[in-house]
């Protein structure tokens, strides 16, 4: 294979990376300096760095409480997703009557936008007596169709021979799932974890409706607090955005390698 010079590629990627990062850099810079909310022309480098805005965020809202709530809810969502999606994904690798219907059903469920389901979802949560609870906040997100198919694809890639051998040994489906499929699909698990975490962590509209008392609020809801009383943005808003961003980035960083592999087995097998 011909060797292409790598520096043009690096150049393009650097430019793209800069474009991707610049907005975030701008937010970060404003969160530590407070320039550019009112000042013009914008300064490229931070002057007079201070952390007051971060302190503001910490004290202005019950940050720890919200953080705990968000973490608990996301934890439930992640665990729920991994367990339920794995189960469903495995079921879809088997043949059974009604499978086609189930698949079509799942695919069409993906097309139902959340904003249109708010009120009925609220009423259902109320019937289940789960209003204002972490579980109530988490439940609608505890299974996602895309992730079911990711698991399915990963399981499809497990060599038939292993499964047949296990069946001959008399292992039931649940055991097969737990002992053979899952260990070979850590990538799919990582994918589920990252996506479930990001989607639940950033969820704004559902907590807005379902949470009535302040102590159960999750972190994103606090966002509107920083769009202050007179609807002007404050420096604390930018600090807040950064603070909310960090856990998602962390989760991604930790599971990065396996996340990418997870999408490999998910994507090509179909």
């Amino acid at each position, binding site marked *: 294979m011909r060797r292409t010079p790598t520096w043009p590629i690096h150049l393009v990627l650097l430019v793209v990376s800069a474009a991707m990062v610049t907005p975030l850099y701008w937010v970060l810079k404003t969160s530590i300096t407070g320039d550019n909310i*009112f000042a013009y022309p914008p300064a490229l480098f931070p002057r007079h760095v201070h952390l007051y805005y971060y302190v503001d965020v910490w004290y202005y809202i019950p940050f720890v409480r919200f953080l705990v709530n968000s973490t*608990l809810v996301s934890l*439930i969502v992640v*665990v*729920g997703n991994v*367990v339920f999606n794995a189960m469903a994904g495995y079921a879809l690798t088997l043949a059974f009557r009604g499978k086609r219907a189930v698949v079509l059903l799942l695919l069409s469920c993906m097309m139902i936008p959340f904003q249109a389901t*708010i*009120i009925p979802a*609220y*009423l259902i949560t*109320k019937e289940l*007596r*789960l209003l*204002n*609870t*972490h*579980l*109530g906040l*988490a439940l609608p997100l505890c299974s996602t169709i895309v992730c079911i198919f990711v698991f399915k694809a990963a399981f499809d890639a497990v060599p038939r021979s292993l499964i047949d051998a296990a069946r001959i040994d008399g292992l039931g489906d*649940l*055991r097969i*799932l*737990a*002992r053979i499929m899952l260990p070979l699909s850590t990538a799919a698990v990582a994918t589920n974890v990252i996506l479930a975490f990001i989607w639940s962590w950033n969820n704004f*509209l559902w907590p*807005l*409706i379902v949470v*009535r*008392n302040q102590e159960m609020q999750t972190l994103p809801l606090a966002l*509107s*607090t920083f*769009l202050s*009383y*007179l*609807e*002007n943005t404050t420096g604390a808003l930018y600090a807040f955005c950064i603070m909310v961003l960090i856990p998602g980035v962390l989760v991604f960083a930790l599971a990065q390698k396996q996340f990418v592999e997870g999408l490999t087995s998910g994507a090509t097998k179909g």
Partner: protein
Amino acid sequence: MKLVRLVVLGAVLMAAVAGCPETAAAQQKISVLTWNIPVYKEKIEGWIADFRKIHPDVQVEWLDKKGPEWGPFYQTQLVAGTAPDVIDVQGGLWLEYAANNGLVDLGPFLARDPEVKDYYNPRILPSWNYEGKQYMVPFYISKTLLFYNKTMLKEAGLTRPPQSFEELVDFARQMGKGEKSGFMTLNFDWLYWPLFAMNGVELLSPDGKKAAFNTPSAAKALDTLAKATADGAVNKVSWTGRWVEPNDAFASGTVGMYQAHAPAFFYVRGSGKWISADTLGVAQMPGGFATPNSHGFGISKSSKRPDLAWDFIKVATNEKWGYTFGTTLRNLTGAPRVDTRILEYFQKEDPLAYSVLKTQVENLDKLVGNWRQAKDAQIKEAFYTEIQAALLGRKPAAQALAEAERKVNRILQR
């Protein structure tokens, strides 16, 4: 291993469900929903404390939502049958609920406590009167006025604020040179309506069943404004901005005249370095027309204890708390006794604020833009989007008005 996993999951779920709060037992409870005043938390706790002196065994749940979130929250609660007992509503949103039998008629309460009826300004109460029933009482009031940049006026050779629509546009043209513009207005909740009222335009027929604004004078006024906008005399942000943008524009000192309500002043003063008693002029719009944008207290029909809700409202709007509110958040309350004291306070402490707030209770017979129509939200939307298109030069004025008329008539018929 799988089994262990399931057990752990089950335990987590049980724990989470167990942590679920018990539905309120024997305790009475009322809930209060306010509109975007989280900064006022301490004082609201004062309201609650005073209320509980009268009703010690009643819990009060206080909720606060910002404007855009207030709607979905309240709608969902309505559907679920758990709407907050006391609600603080801005502008015309209450009409929808009143028309659909969602608010308690406060008439009997006011009649029962006559001193309370005289307590609220009788010129302001009608703002919340729909089909003969009184649905809300004032919490804090505001209406539009004309701010002007004295420096810019002087530079254009003008000596006084305009006193007619023609003068308004003319002055705007004189001041609107280069980067500067001569006039700007807020556009939400019918706040721009005085511009039409000045030209004798009525929105609807007297019986409220048909659109009545498609008249030659309206077309002429709209056309004049559109041309002035195109020429930069009227700042485009008037028609495209929400709240922050127009205020920021005026604060930057490049706009000659600004039609806005009192809260805008306090916002603008914060970021407008040029503002002082010498440089900021305060006046009524030509003809004295103004659109109110007040907050009222009402009681949801689904409330199980409307009497308690009423008592709470009385506490929140009584002299002590009304005065505190007015002086802390710089608004008038719609209760004349209290407003006089608030004005006195500002006259001493902050003469410029005083001059602004004074206008909020003048010309209360010239209030416009506050029709009591059940479908106010839809009419407002239909009308404004059409004229916005005309004002931004996308459509001729006559066509915009005709289409608006068609849409509004349709809304009224449905």
